């Protein structure tokens, strides 16, 4: 731990001296994600659940349903409805977050619904709802990506019919370098060309994009490179997700 801290301090100093972002704050390779930890079935009461972490960013997802949807006017007679509720707990961030939903969490919940809908086969469950609750219990950037990865595993473990898994990663342009899985310090990077934060979600097998957001400043050509970097990185994450899901079988 101390060694790691020292390494990190040194990396910090190097960056201040060199200006250009050639070495990452935590010493990772540009195309390397933080350590991933996945657990399935962390909430026994739920129909399906999972936790997913990218280093210090930890998300827990629980799935309840399909179950009857009330009030009735929200029902869809053709297929089931997915409702995502993303939120962070108050002490998950450095400055206390006011408990309860915010504009930010509402938007993330909506883009998560859009990210997950393409793989769900809900035609067999008309007039029902699948409620998906995702809580961030500790945050150090890329929380929506960790949330999607957890959600995707939770849905699969609940036995919801799916055509594919959804895999998410954040890609960043820090100064001139394209890196994957940003940490907070990278998101706040201000030297050189600054930071651009791009969360992606891909359908693991078809490679199609289901979540795509961006904040910062980037040219079209650089953005295309970021898409490729995200796609490559998601392959590794997908392998971890698959491994975690297979472990359920062994447990039983």
């Amino acid at each position, binding site marked *: 731990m101390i060694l790691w801290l020292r390494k990190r301090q040194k990396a910090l100093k190097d960056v201040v001296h060199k200006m250009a972002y050639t070495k990452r704050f935590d010493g990772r390779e540009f195309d390397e994600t933080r350590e991933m930890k996945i657990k399935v079935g962390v909430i026994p009461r739920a129909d399906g659940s999972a936790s997913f972490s990218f280093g210090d960013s930890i998300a827990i997802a629980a799935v309840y349903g399909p179950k009857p949807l009330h009030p009735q006017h929200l029902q869809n007679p053709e297929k089931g409805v997915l409702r995502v509720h993303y939120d962070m707990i108050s002490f998950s961030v450095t*400055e206390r977050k006011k408990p309860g939903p915010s504009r930010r969490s509402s938007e993330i919940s909506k*883009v998560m619904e*859009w990210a997950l809908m393409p793989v769900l086969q809900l035609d067999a469950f008309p007039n029902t709802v699948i409620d998906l609750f995702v809580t961030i219990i500790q945050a150090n950037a890329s929380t929506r990506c960790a949330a999607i990865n957890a959600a995707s595993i939770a849905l699969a473990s609940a036995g919801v019919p799916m055509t594919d898994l959804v895999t998410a990663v954040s890609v960043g342009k820090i100064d001139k370098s394209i890196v994957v899985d940003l940490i907070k310090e990278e998101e706040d990077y201000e030297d050189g060309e600054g930071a651009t934060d791009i969360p992606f979600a891909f359908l693991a097998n078809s490679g199609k994009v*289901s979540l*795509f*957001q961006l904040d910062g400043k980037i040219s079209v050509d650089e953005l295309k490179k970021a898409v490729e970097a995200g796609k490559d990185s998601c392959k590794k994450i997908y392998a971890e997700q698959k491994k975690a899901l297979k472990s359920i079988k062994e447990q039983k």
Partner: protein
Amino acid sequence: MELSNITKRRIVEYLSEGKRFDSRKLLEYRPISIEMNISKNADGSARVRMGNTEVVAGVKLDAGTPFTDSQDSGVLIVTTELSPLASEKFELGPPGIQSIELSRLVDRGIRESGFIDFKKLCIKEGEKVWSIFLDIYPMNDGGNLIDASCLAAVAALCNTRLPKYDEEKEKVKFGEWTNKKLPLTDKLPLTMTFHKISKSIILDPITEEEEASEARLTVAMSPKDKEPKINALQKGNAKELSKEEVFEMLEQAEKEWHKRYPLILEKIEAEKKKHEK
């Protein structure tokens, strides 16, 4: 009214032949009109019309406290109210997801472009800074509220003058104005929202096309050395996009921006001149 299947099929059929209900090309915008200074009591205001779509935006400034992580910078708060006046689909009550997303998209497009010089909006470091309340009110939803709202917001900012400030009481003198303009840069942000319907990609949808949309991609761009840079981006709606489709939209965005940006700039400059005295 929800879109009927028959209308959706007709839209897809038309688009596959490269046609639209209002005889536009797939990537063609409707005529745009920008009016500035439409409100006497606002610090800045504008009305934008794109075909049947009409959006009004206004700016009110107040002296407030800065955010803890940026003690010397002004504050921007963007709000959209989707009033039932503008469409039968909007309901009274607290903001729904559509208005939240719209506000946050416009906010990010403006904030990340660097169009507003926030550092110049500091009154007393750590204590008092100018807060910009940018409020967007669609008057008629004829489709493509995102692009119309962003344009109205930008035009309203271009029209904004600072109110007088009482140094002793540390309060704004509402209703009295200085000759100072809001500090802006030349990095004017523009959004372009692409929609995918069946196999076609279109810009500036009318209501029916918007309801038939399977996926959309909003791209906010601003110039740097006369070339567009992407400042904010968001994929919306419940269907996925292939990598090729994403790349095509990005390339079209770059191309369209070169056509559209000078046009918008010209309109804004013309309006600015009208109100400069």
